[in-house]
């Protein structure tokens, strides 16, 4: 019998409602002892690419108004808005990485960039057509959802923006590349996004609502699997070339964990069927899995910092 992970590899957009987010997360980590090569990942992109404009949000619009209670709507927006902005950020902050990496990774990164643009459009459509946020352009709708984004979002995503600026100025600097990849691929995509995807998708699945959101966001998660696998390969290659770069990985993680210990307001997860402790547990689990993928362990003094990370943020 073909496993769910095997089926996910071949599935089209119309089939995405059949998959659970846990299937997608397992797909990310399948065979991580041998991470796919960049051109293999590019081939998967060509086969798995989906059209964001094939999604019909009419049922989602009705569900949002009639079936999703107000407390759940508010919690959903506080989580999903992090993705709305996160997807835009990981799209606009990717291009400079192409400058200084291998030719094969450059090819894959063009697909990664196109994916993130598609995810940005996905959330733009969700916020316009389902939530009802108006706007003449994508930035208008982003401005409209900003009120639901946690203030501490500026921590990891500001760090990503500033490291991108360094990368633009020093594209071949391996230390900058490592700091950037730790922030983008390990933390934002590999920890925050993969953890928090479970929350809104689980809610939609359990309450049988928002079918187009479920289909499109599950497809988004499958795209993220390629990004994380490509990113972890890149980090592993950096470490193989120069093991001393583990210091930059650890230093950057230390900053991310320090920032992660802050929150300025609560996110109520209970209306979505979650709680703070379970969400924090997701973060810790995903961080450990990413570090295993790249063959790195945390220094003892940082292990305790992981438990202090607040369950506040969604990623892109």
């Amino acid at each position: 019998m073909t496993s769910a992970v095997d089926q996910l590899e071949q599935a089209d957009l119309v089939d995405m409602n059949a998959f659970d987010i846990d299937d997608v997360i397992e797909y990310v980590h399948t065979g991580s002892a041998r991470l796919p090569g960049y051109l293999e990942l590019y081939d998967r992109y060509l086969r798995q690419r989906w059209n964001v404009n094939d999604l019909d949000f009419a049922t989602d619009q009705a569900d949002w108004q009639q079936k999703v209670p107000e407390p759940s709507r508010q919690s959903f927006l506080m989580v999903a808005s992090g993705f709305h902005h996160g997807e835009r950020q990981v799209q606009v902050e990717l291009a400079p990485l192409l400058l200084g990496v291998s030719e094969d990774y450059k090819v894959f990164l063009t697909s990664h960039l196109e994916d993130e643009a598609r995810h940005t459009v996905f959330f733009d459509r969700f916020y316009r057509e389902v939530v009802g946020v108006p706007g003449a352009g994508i930035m208008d709708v982003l401005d409209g959802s900003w009120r639901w984004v946690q203030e501490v979002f500026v921590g990891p995503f500001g760090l990503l923006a500033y490291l991108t600026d360094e990368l633009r100025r020093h594209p071949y600097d391996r230390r900058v590349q490592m700091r950037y990849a730790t922030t983008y691929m390990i933390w934002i995509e590999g920890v925050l996004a993969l953890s928090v995807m479970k929350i809104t998708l689980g809610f939609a699945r359990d309450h049988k609502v928002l079918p187009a959101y479920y289909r499109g966001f599950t497809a988004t998660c499958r795209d993220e699997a390629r990004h994380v696998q490509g990113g972890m390969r890149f980090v592993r290659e950096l470490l193989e070339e120069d093991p001393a770069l583990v210091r930059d990985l650890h230093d950057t993680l230390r900053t991310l964990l320090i920032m992660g210990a802050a929150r300025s307001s609560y996110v109520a997860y209970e209306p979505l069927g979650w709680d703070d402790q379970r969400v924090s547990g997701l973060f810790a689990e995903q961080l450990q899995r990413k570090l295993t993928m790249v063959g790195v362990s945390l220094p003892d003094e940082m292990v305790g910092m992981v438990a202090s990370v607040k369950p506040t943020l969604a990623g892109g």
Partner: protein
Amino acid sequence: MTVPSGFMTKHWGEEVAAAINHSPSPAYRATKLEEYWQWVDRAKANLSTAAVLWVKDAAEGDRGRGLLMHLERGRVASTETVEGSLGDQEAEFVLAGEMSSWRAMLEGYDVRKTVMYRRLTLDKGDVVLFFRSIYYWVELLVALSSVPVA
């Protein structure tokens, strides 16, 4: 771009220092969880350094002018106006932007977007170290934005 005449002046710098050292107000403090301010206080304890807030002169390469702040455990101990080349500034951190970015922030543009959209950039200093105190720097910019400019 019209430059407010009082911007980056000695007098304005002194008022900015006072605003930073007296923030947050009780009303503003109440808008966030107390644990957030405790995080900011812990960051302050490790911040005894010099930082420059710098206005880039778009027509003149790395030349411009700014406000040099000497921080002692996060409090602004003194300020002075500086000008010349950004590379010559004797500070651990230089946070720089075009006049249009500073003006937008002073006129109410969101401080967090100002950072995340790179309307201000860290043109000198270790980015990874800077972000270990990021919420302190964000609140410093919020306080700065509250000071009127003539």
